[in-house]
Every structure is written in C-alpha cells, then in structure tokens.
C-alpha cells in the first residue's frame, strides 16, 4: 500500500515536472515577449531595461530553476499584456470557472444518473430509446456547437436567457460569486448545460451499461427469488453496486469539465480562466499561458491521484490484482 502511494506520488511529481518544462519552454521559444508588451515608440534602452527587469537575459538553466521555484510558490510573474501579477489574475478568474464547472458537474450527475438507471431498467421502452438516441447526439456534437444552438434558441429566438457574461457579481473576500442573484443564476444556465451535456450523456451511458451488467448477476436473481420488491432490488442492490465506477469516472471527468470550460467560456464570453487562456494564446501572453497549463495539470494530477487511491481503498479485488502483479 505504502509502496503504491509512493510510486503514484513520484509519478505525479514527474508529470508536473514535464508540464513545467513545457510551460517553461514556451517562455524561451516564443519570439520576443518584449515586442508584445511595448508600443512602437519605445526606445531600445527602455526595451533593454524591461528585458532585464523581467529576467529574460539570464541563462536557460537559471531561468528554469527560477521558474520552478516561483511556480511552486504560485508565482508566475507579470502578465505581458496587463502588466499585473499572473497569480492575481488567476485568483480573480478562478471563482467563475469553478462555479460554472461545479454546477455543470452537479447537473450532469443529477440528470445523468436517473436517466442511466431508467434506460438500464427499461431498455426496450420508447422513452429509453429516445434518451439513447438523444445521448448519441450529445456525444457526437462538439461542445461549441451545442452552445451556439442553445444561444440561438434560448437567447435569440425565445429571448429567455442571457447569452453572455456572468450577470451581477458579489464579492465575498477574494471569491467573487454570481450565484447570489437571480440574474446570476439565469446567466449560468446556458453555459452550464453546454458544459454538462457531454458528461451527462457519458454518465448516463455508463450507468446504463453497469446496470445491465449487474442486473444479470446471480445475487440479483436471488434477491428477486426471495420476493424483494423491485424498488429494493433495483436501487438497494443493483444501483449500489454500479456506484464505484460511476464515482470514479465522475471524479475524473471533473478535470475534463474544467479543461473543456475553455470552449464553453469562449462561446458564452464567461469571464473565467478558460477565456483568459484563449485570450492569452492570441496575445502570446506567455506567463498567463504557462500558469494556466501548470494549474490545469495540477488539477488533473491531484484528481487522478485521489481517484486512484480511492479506487485502491474501495475495491478489494483491485488490491489483490495489483499486489500480485507487482509480486508482493
């Protein structure tokens, strides 16, 4: 067990270092950041001064060491575009992304789970078939297309919901929330649906497949033979046993939701980290780009690590297999 944890931790650190190297390489390969920051009438002396201030004259090794050291403390320097600390920018944008992602994840789970159970239990029914057909569309359509179609229907044609922005925002300490007003909730509906749809169909199909699998097992047959009511068999026995993979996948998908929010945020002009990243890409704002990359990688690595450890704890079969494979 301890060996496994150490092994996974080392792996995670290695992944983070690779990502840091990529993020750092961005710094060094990208043309001339100074040109992106200053106006045309800046003199050569002023440019050199700025270059020295930003530490762009030092050797590559020194710069990388400094980069990792600063990154570990959450410092990514100044944004080339806005000349403000990147950490400050990210702290400003993070609440928007996290609120959107968490609402989308909750939506996906709350809708996907019952739909999956339903389609698993009534697999031949008309409603279940319709749900499966719709879910195929959810899987096939690109996120941005779903967003645009939702805007077209609910914002342009029907005029019910706003199509961009977060609505009014209330500041709670460093956390800015849009969820304290009706307009804020109205603003979050369309982006959250857009972001949730793919995950929802994924969860639904997963639960359906797991339910079909479990319903075929002997203990379900025995439960039915004992004369237990359908409700108890379906939910108490069957659904409970599908939960391990569902929780795992949902946990892993949380990372994807945060990453996919790049697209949703661009469609809805949602002022979060994803929009910041895309804007940074078009401005070649390297500090922001690399900070975002490192942060997203950190999210992923931590989530993967936690899920892996949980899996190891929850599923005893896996423990035996892994130990056997490692020869312990």
């Amino acid at each position, binding site marked *: 067990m301890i060996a496994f944890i150490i092994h996974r931790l080392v792996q995670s650190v290695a992944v983070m270092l690779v990502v840091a190297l990529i993020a750092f390489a961005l710094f060094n*390969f990208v043309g001339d950041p100074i040109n992106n920051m200053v106006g045309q009438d800046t003199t050569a002396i002023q440019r050199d001064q700025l270059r020295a201030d930003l530490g762009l004259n030092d050797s590559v090794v020194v710069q990388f060491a400094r980069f990792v050291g600063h990154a570990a403390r959450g410092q990514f320097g100044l944004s080339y575009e806005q000349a403000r600390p990147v950490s400050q920018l990210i702290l400003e944008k993070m609440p928007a992304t996290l609120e959107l992602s968490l609402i989308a994840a909750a939506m996906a789970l709350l809708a996907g789970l019952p739909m999956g159970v339903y389609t698993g239990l009534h697999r031949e029914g008309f409603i279940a078939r319709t749900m499966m057909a719709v879910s*195929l*569309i959810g899987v*096939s359509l*690109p996120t941005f297309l779903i967003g645009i179609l939702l805007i*077209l229907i609910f914002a*342009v044609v029907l005029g019910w919901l706003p199509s961009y922005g977060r609505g009014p925002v209330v500041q709670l300490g460093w956390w800015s929330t849009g969820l304290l007003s009706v307009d804020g909730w109205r603003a979050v509906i369309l982006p959250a649906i857009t972001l949730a749809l793919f995950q929802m169909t994924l969860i639904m199909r997963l639960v359906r497949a797991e339910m079909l699998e479990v319903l075929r097992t002997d203990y379900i047959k025995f439960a039915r033979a004992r004369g237990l009511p359908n409700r108890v068999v379906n939910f108490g026995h069957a659904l409970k046993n599908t939960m391990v993979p569902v929780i795992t996948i949902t946990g892993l998908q949380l990372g994807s939701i945060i990453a*996919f929010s790049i697209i949703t945020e661009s469609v809805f002009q949602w002022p979060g980290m994803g929009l910041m990243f*895309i804007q940074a890409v078009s401005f070649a704002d390297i500090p922001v780009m690399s900070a975002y990359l490192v942060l997203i990688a950190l999210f992923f690595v931590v989530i993967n690590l936690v899920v892996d450890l949980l899996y190891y704890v929850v599923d005893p079969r896996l423990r035996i297999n892994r130990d056997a494979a490692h020869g312990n």
Partner: protein
Amino acid sequence: MAIKEGATDAGLTAGASAGLLRGAWRSVFGSDLWYSFTRSKITVISGAITLVLVVSALLAPMISPQNPLDLSSLNLLDALDPPVWMEGGSFDYPLGTDGQGRDMLSAILFGARLSLIVGFASVVFALIMGVSLGLIAGYRGGIVDGIIMRFADVQLSFPAILIALLVDGIARSVLPHDLQDQIATYVLIIAIGVSGWVQFARTVRGSTMVEKSKEYVQAARVIGVHPIRIMLGHVLPNVTGPVMVIATIYLAVAIITEATLSFLGVGVPATQPSLGTLIRIGGNFLFSGEWWITLFPAVMLAVLVLAVNLLGDWLRDALNPKLR
C-alpha cells in the same frame, strides 16, 4: 481473404479482367461485412450520407455555384441575403450569403472539404505514429515499451483537445510569423494527430504482444527474418481490424477537434474557412437575425460527425468476434 481471392484471379490470363472484376465484386458484396452492413438501416443511411458528403466535398470546386476563395467573384451588394425560401432570397444563393456576399452553399461545400481533408490527414498521422510506436513497444518490450507507454499514460490523463491546443500553440510560437498562414493547416494536422496517437498505440501494442508469442512469429524469428519485416509483414496484417475501428471513430473526433480549434480561432487560417471557421464567423451575425450563416455549417458539421460516428459504431460491432 479478399486479398487472396484477388491474387488467384489475377493469376488467370484469359478473361482475367472480367474474372477479377467478378471476384472483387463477390469479395466486397458477398462478404460478411457487407451482409452485416445491409442488415442495419441506420448504418446504410449513415453510410450513404457519409458517401454523399465526402463525394460532394471532394468535388466542391466543380459542383459548387461559386468559388468562395476567389474574392473577385464576391459581390458585396449580395451580402447577408437570406436563404431562397425566405423573403428577399434568390436562387443564385440557395442557402443565403454571409457578410461578404459569399454563397453559403459553396462556402459550406468548401468548408466541409477542408474539414474532411484535415480530419483524414490527422487520422493518417495519428495512425502511422500510433501504430509504429505500438508495434515497437509491443515487439521490443522492456524499457522501450516502458518509456512509450508512460508517455501514452501521461497524455491520456489530459483531454485530447487540450493536447491539440498545446501542440498548436507551441508550434505557432516556434515557427516564423510570416510563414504561419501557409503552414497553419499542416500544424493543425500534426496537432490533432499527436493528440490522438495513444489509442492506436495501446491497441496495437496489446495485439502485438499476443501475436509475438504465436508460432508463426517465432518461426519467422528462427529463420532470421529482420524484426522490421516481422513487424510490418507478419504482425501488422493481424492487428488491422481494431485499427480500422479506431481510425473510423477517431475520424469523427478529429473533425470535431478541427472544428473546435478553428472555432476558437487557432485552427485553419481565416482565408481558408473550414466548417468551424464558418460557424465562428456566423456567430457574430447571430444577434442581428442572420441565423443561416451559423446554422447551415453547424448542421453540416453535426450530420457529418453523426454519420461517421454511427459508421464507427457499426464497424466496431461488426468486427467484434464476441458479438457474432
């Protein structure tokens, strides 16, 4: 099987071509695969739709009413015309025009053409990269296998779109600025291809490890066949089934990724609009009521992806021996 039949037919000299044709005909339309294809209505429909879309996209320069890439053929007076069935529409522009007076039908045909070309090329790139790395990893084993598969694991823990964005972003910043528009499409193909090689590599590696221990490979090794020849000539033909399935499913993913990157403005250059670019441009007109500029490319993209996806699903089931 199909190859063998064709080979024996080719051996006959008299009336060879007729026999060859008949043999090819029989090997395609008499095969199990064709039978299972015709069994499912949805598959036949999606196959037909894919065929029509691919052919019309390939023939776009010939069949489209206007060349949307030729700026001199555009007429600004015709800008923002609605589709033909609405008031103010004309038969010159059956699906309306965009803000520059571009015929939407032509733009969509050319856009689909570019989307398909980039999609296919990315699949080929991912396939070659993934299959060769998978073959090497599975055949060599040991530390080579370890390095390749660790890379695959790390990449697999991030969404493909993020990898593609990253590769595209890095390539753009490394390459000189004045070249960017010319090579943007190639950069895009490589970015999407790199983001998709892992699936191929994992499957091929698994099959290779199984095939490697079989007697025919052992025999080939004993008589001193070169490892590369064993990999390409003996192992590869036996792992093509799953590779074809992944390639089909990945084609849909590649088309979506291309459209998404172009939609985000980091895909193909704006001078050569793909479906994603058209949707992005159309998004600006959404609020002024010109919905057709977005909706028609969007529908085209959705239908294309859905049809390819359904074909992939069918192929996966048809080639899966467990489901027979």
